């Protein structure tokens, strides 16, 4: 389902923050300079374009061949990319909340955004996720405390709300409230 990840373009366009591994501060950061999308060279094959176009169409709920700003992140993720919300905001030019709900992008406008994200070297593998979770493995026994994970996910980074965390953690905790994180990562990656 994921399109072929084509990181063909070696020179990324100019960015204000060269942060490949996202580590945003919890407080609101100073607004970074917007991304110049016109400088992005779109380099997808015909096949890939058709794949992306179909997926794009699935998210167009209005029928004007466009999608709202607040859907861009989801479409990229549906296509197998993994940008943070902050990165997407940057790509969109730091829109206001109003813009996010009301402004729309057509497919041609979406392509450079997608290309930009594909070019950004922030791919994470199975190992990365496991390593990330290992941080919380106090006893080094392959499990983390579910409760701790919940707190972390709701207070750090791009905070998740309670419903999201519940959906994520359903069925993962054993009777002691622990999560075997390798199995957890396998589970979540097997969508």
């Amino acid at each position, binding site marked *: *389902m994921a399109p072929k990840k084509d990181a063909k373009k070696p020179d990324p366009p100019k960015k204000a923050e060269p942060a490949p*591994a*996202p*580590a*945003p501060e919890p407080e609101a950061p100073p607004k970074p300079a917007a991304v110049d999308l016109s400088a992005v060279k779109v380099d997808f094959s015909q*096949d890939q374009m*058709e*794949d992306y*176009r*179909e*997926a794009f*169409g*699935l*998210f*167009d*709920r*209005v*029928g*004007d*061949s466009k999608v709202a700003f607040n859907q861009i*992140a*989801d*479409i*990229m*993720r*549906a296509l*197998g*990319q*993994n*940008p*943070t*919300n902050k990165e997407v905001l940057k790509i969109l030019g730091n829109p206001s909340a109003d813009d996010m709900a009301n402004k729309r992008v057509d*497919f041609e406008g979406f392509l450079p955004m997608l290309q930009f994200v594909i070019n950004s070297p922030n791919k*994470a593998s199975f190992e*990365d*996720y496991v390593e*990330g*979770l290992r*941080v*919380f493995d106090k006893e080094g026994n392959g499990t983390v405390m579910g409760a701790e*994970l919940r707190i*972390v*996910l709701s207070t*750090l*980074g*791009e*905070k*998740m709300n309670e419903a*999201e965390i519940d*959906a*994520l953690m*359903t*069925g993962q905790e054993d009777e002691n409230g622990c999560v075997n994180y390798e*199995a957890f990562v*396998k*589970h*979540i*990656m*097997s*969508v």
Partner: protein
Amino acid sequence: MGCGVTKTSEFNKRCDRAMKAAVLIQRWYRQYVARMEMRRRYTWNIFQSMEYSDLQDQIKLYNFLGYLVDNFTPSSSERNLISHIFRENEVCRDAEWERYFSYTNIDVPDIYSGPRLTFPLDMDQAADLVEAFKNKQQLHSRYVLQLLLETWKLLRVLPNINRVSTCHSKEITICGDLHGQLEDLLLIFYKNGMPSLEKPYVFNGDYVDRGKDSIEILLILFAFLLVHPGDVYLNRGNHEDHIINLRYGFTKEVLGKYKMHGKRILKLLQKIFSWLPLVTVIDHRVLVVHGGISDTTDLGLIARVDRHRYVSALRPPKKKNASRSNLYTDTAINEMIFCKNRRGSLTFPKQFGSRDSFQRRSLQDFSSTVARTVEEELEVRRRQAEFSLSSFSMSHRNLNSLSSESDPDSSENTETSNEEWKQILDLLWSDPMSQDGCIPNEIRGGGCYWGPDVTEDFLNRHNLQLIIRSHECKQDGYEFCHNRKVLTLFSASNYYDVGSNRGAFVRLGPDLVPYFVQYQATSMTRGLSFPQSVKRTEHTALKVLREQLFAHKSQLISAFQEFDKEKTGLISLNNWASAVEQVLHLDLPWRVLRPQLVSDTTDSMLNYYCWFRDLALKKPSSENVEQTLLETLYRHRSTLETIFRIVDTDNSGLISFEDFRQTLKLLSAYLKMEISDEAINDLVISTDTNNDGSIDIDEFMEAFRLVDRTRLESSRSLQMFKQENQDQPQEEETQQTADYASPQTAVSQNADSAGQQTADSPDSQAADSAGSQTEDTCHNSLVPPQ
């Protein structure tokens, strides 16, 4: 971070890593959600496309039959078989009616343990009726007839427009489509209370079809209507229509439950449906109507029509000349290349990059053999015109011979009645769209798509503030559009499949601010997490889709061979997607779906013969009957069954050999496909299981292994599904694996599309493909009945 200085950097490093880890998980999770959302959307599209395409089939069939009636000579046997459905509704005098529908000589045996009604009904009896149905009892036909007669008497004096007010601080509850799903109605009553003086209700149509308890829902609603006529309001929906009922299951349900008196019950219901009010207006401010409006909707006109003359939306009022105004002829549809975004609403044709195929919906029939060419259509029209001009008197006589009573209307009224018919059609069949304007609704075949400007204009003209309508299934049970001036309300939960959607009802107080209650029947769905329910529904949708693909095998192979001129048996995946869309016309995102439908490719080329072998659920094993005939019959089994039911004029469930033969001939004419007499004979001989010279329709359809939903319980499959999932909590296998393919599970899984008849009916039990079949419980076998 006020730690000791020596530990700060260590601590900072730890915090940093924790942060990175958190962000990683969060990003990953959001990706998971987005991919789930995509799957949910295309699953929805699959169900909707198939629902609408089946509806189009019905319209086409109807038009085709109408064409036959118009153009065959009176003595033709085909015409005789079907002309009765075009007869004008008999306008009998009351006395005759009462005699025909008399129930007094129907005895109720002592062993009958269901409710015994005495009229006039009271609240206790109505409540008892609900309880009885909850306990799966059936009301005796004597009481059914009596109840229906009383209902009819009441409905006749009701106006076309119900007027309700929220005085005395009463809150009014409004419900949308129920479609025979008794569980949902019971759930609504449980959450909200039964109808009473303090609890008025408006029901917005589509009580029947698809679900298995349509008659029970009707009886309950009519009982409450009789007990509280001032507090229960019923609107007519597009499924309150006997011709639609022939295809979508209500006719079959009634005949199955009431073997002796089913026919009379259906006839009485036919009249009752035509007497149902058309719209309800609350406080002069809110309009409640089943479908919607058009740019010409005029409530003043609506108030004046004789609504009972419009028995079926598919049957326009009788005309004085022979030219039929078919609903939307095939050519008209073909000529209007029409972009429709199935996900939201319409787009007018416009350029969209180099290929806009996924948005384009050209409304041609699936089978190229059915689509009429322009020339053929002109020929038909020419013939009709000739017929009418040159033999006006003969046609007049013919038309009169069709109806059992002459219509009192004079020819000037034809124009008015057409206008009225269109108004009613618009009310019951229209859908909102996001673009301004008003265009005919070819997807459904009736009514129109209307835009926000039309809403605005309509509300202003009639001094209203909100339109509440139903007719379209919504994921969350309700949805606003047109700047919150139009509300779609749908009360049948799990409509496409268990877990597919919630149902909802709305309460309006004097402030006319809607308060929504959402629900989902079947407690088992609460056990499923959102991802599990998405996957389950997706699984069913894909199964239905695979069935469709398999049913169109010969056409698909021809289409593939267009791309594979050297007959290598291989096709590229891109060409696969184009070919499939070309043949099926479902406007689905085939590229996105491809990984679910095609498992085995080398170098992104697909061996399509192997692919079909994988899709094949059971090898057809008949030697006697031609393969293509069976394939055709299988593909068009809904149409075939509909024709059977039309031909079966006494609604006995049996048709004679001769009629069976004629039916197949009708079908072959409709499909423009030759079926040789020999092939028909073979089929007839192998079909007569009774050996009594007649064919049981259900038994014949059983040959295609359509499982009768009423015999299977919905809960059983879900239970097995849950059990299965409990065994594998951590693993989420892809759909192509055999995790659902164990025959028992698959068997019950389908059963439980608890009354959801999606197009071409997934009530055939098909275990999944890919060689995991060890048991022969499956379906879709093209074996004629043994």
